[in-house]
């Protein structure tokens, strides 16, 4: 009986987690695992592969944070979320950090009590439609049925766009991207709308991608970034500077392959030295060690590598860098300096 009692105690206590009041960083380190909220499956951004291993652009950032904080990019528990559950998962403490192609907005920042990390993907909302519908512009959509994920900014943008252009339409609310694909491919709706990057990903997953096109109109600004809960600035700083480090690594030519080597000893470029911890310990200011950025970069590479491996021109998604090119190459990707 005693054995059973203690077994029960162990079982129950492992379900209830007492988190120390101290802060998210300590919690994560004590747990030895980062809880990262991602989407339920959006090819290229975050989706489990055949072996159940999560892969993608957003996943890459999760792994980079885990590598910086815990020293191992594999120590991540991915929490799949719908557009509706994502913030609740973060605010209830189930997730430590969120990378789920989430648009930064004022109300989310102030009212939903999120702290956004630097933008890691500049996106905009578009429409996907069957080619045989013979439509060339989003202004010809009168009377169409539009599939749309609920609980997203796209839902609000769509309502605004349609109202401003006086277009009548039938919104068909769906919960997840999979349901969206299922409804769209069954022709329950004429259009599927979400961020252009998401459309590219969805289109690649359709049976015959060439039968579908993405309309030229981009109807909104969708700066996508990670987010953490309000109220833990130290933790927000870590997320913020891991993202910045990944972006800066591209500018400085530090890659997954050469980061370790370059961190062996200080070089001529003080920017590189500061990032890789060979000069003035920046990691300590964040509550981490000096090698934090090296590990973050080694987890999945710099921004260019993350982009090209997951969503770039050579992947099924085939997205161009466009706005997301580094500011030196004509894009608007511009990270604050590490100094």
């Amino acid at each position, binding site marked *: 009986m005693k054995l059973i009692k203690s077994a029960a105690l162990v*079982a129950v206590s*492992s379900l209830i987690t007492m988190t120390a009041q101290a802060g998210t960083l300590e919690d994560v380190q004590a747990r030895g695992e980062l809880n990262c909220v991602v989407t339920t499956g959006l090819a290229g951004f975050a989706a489990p592969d055949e072996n159940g291993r999560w892969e993608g652009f957003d996943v890459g950032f999760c792994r980079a944070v885990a590598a910086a904080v815990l020293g191992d990019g594999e120590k991540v528990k991915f929490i799949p979320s719908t557009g509706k559950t994502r913030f609740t998962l973060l605010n209830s403490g189930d997730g430590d950090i969120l990378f789920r192609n989430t648009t930064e907005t004022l109300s989310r920042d102030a009212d939903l009590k999120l702290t956004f990390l630097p933008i890691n993907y500049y996106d905009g909302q578009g429409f996907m439609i069957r080619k045989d519908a013979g439509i060339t512009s989003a202004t010809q959509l009168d009377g169409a049925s539009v599939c749309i994920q609920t609980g997203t900014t796209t839902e609000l943008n769509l309502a605004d766009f349609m109202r401003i252009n006086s277009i009548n339409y039938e919104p068909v609310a769906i919960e997840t991207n999979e349901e969206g694909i299922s409804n769209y491919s069954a022709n329950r709706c004429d259009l599927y709308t979400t961020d252009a990057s998401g459309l590219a990903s969805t289109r690649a997953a359709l049976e015959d991608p060439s039968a579908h096109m993405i309309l030229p109109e981009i109807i909104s600004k969708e700066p996508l970034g990670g987010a953490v809960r309000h109220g833990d600035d130290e933790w927000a700083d870590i997320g913020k500077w891991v993202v910045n480090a990944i972006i800066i690594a591209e500018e400085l030519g530090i890659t997954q392959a050469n980061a370790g080597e370059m961190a062996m000893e200080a070089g001529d470029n003080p920017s590189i030295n500061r990032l890789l911890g060979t000069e003035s310990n920046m990691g300590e200011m964040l509550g981490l060690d000096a090698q934090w950025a090296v590990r973050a970069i080694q987890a999945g590479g710099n921004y260019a590598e993350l982009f090209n491996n997951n969503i770039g021109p050579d992947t099924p998604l085939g997205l161009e860098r466009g706005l997301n090119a580094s500011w030196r190459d004509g894009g608007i990707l511009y990270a604050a300096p590490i100094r």
Partner: protein
Amino acid sequence: MNQKAYLPGEHPNLPPPSSIIGPVAWIRGNLFSTPANTVMTVLIVWLLYKSLPAAIDWLFIDAAYTGDNRDECKARGSGACWAFINERLRLFAYGFYPIEERWRVNLSFVLLIVATVAVLFDNLPYRKYGLYFAMAFPFIAGWLLIGGAGLTPVPTDKFGGFMLTLVIGITGIAASLPIGIALALGRQSRLPIIRLFSVGFIEFIRGVPLITLLFVASTMLSYFLPPGTSFDLLLRVLIMVTLFASAYMAEVIRGGLQAIPKGQLEAADAMGLKYWASMRLVVLPQALKISIPGIVNTFIGLYKDTTLVLIIGLLDPLGVGRASLADTKWTGLAYEVYLFVAIFFFISCFSMARYSLYLENKLQTGHKQ
């Protein structure tokens, strides 16, 4: 005609005429007794003729049982593609439970059968120890499934499939039984405040849909916990499911309590038994016995309701099926998935319903002299 005269009592027993027994008579009596009946019969036979062969073709004859993806499957047969179900069978059974730890699920299942047998059959040897074991079973199973204390811990988000259905269903029913008894007694209590609280709780829970309670579990329950504590999502769901089931359980048991004649309680009073003693020794044993069919029915309802957890992101069999449908290799096989899950639920619920019916009949004869 060779007429033979018989004396009274000498006539041999003749078989009944063929219009009373035999297949022809049966068909005439049961299928064509009136014009309206004839029309019905013809209509139904025609409907079955139209639908049954096509259904059997799709289900079995034209179905494909092997293949690595949808196209291969469809090339082998124009009917159902069972290869998909076959490939995902383990996912349906265990969810994402780690492969090397699945023996723990299997062991728990075997122990569950042992515990169930001990509870259901009352003429087994050593039944007393069996009952002790059944009482300890939820804790043992919890330890086996979650791990800790010597076993590798398995996070509950890896739970899924039929295993999750059983975990939620059985925990819900086992934990709700004592709460349900307490609530039922509270509702019958002569203390007005206790009665008020019990009625309030029962009517509140019965007045709202389970899905909203699950939403409460997933969105706002964490706010009510002491600052800095967080419950596992599965635990939160279990709490809500238990509360939900206990309200229904309370009503079932109240029915049982009301069926006990007042004289029983008065007799217990006369014997000098106190409230708890008379409840424990006289009223509850009888009331619970009468309530067993109702309890089984509540369990069936709860068992079916476990599918709702997919809406808040837990992967029960239906959730596993829906997630599998998103696999681009196997798109468009919804019917196979739904049918498979439906058959699973049908078999388990139907057999439980039969058992409950059997009990009901058995108990009824016991009470009607």
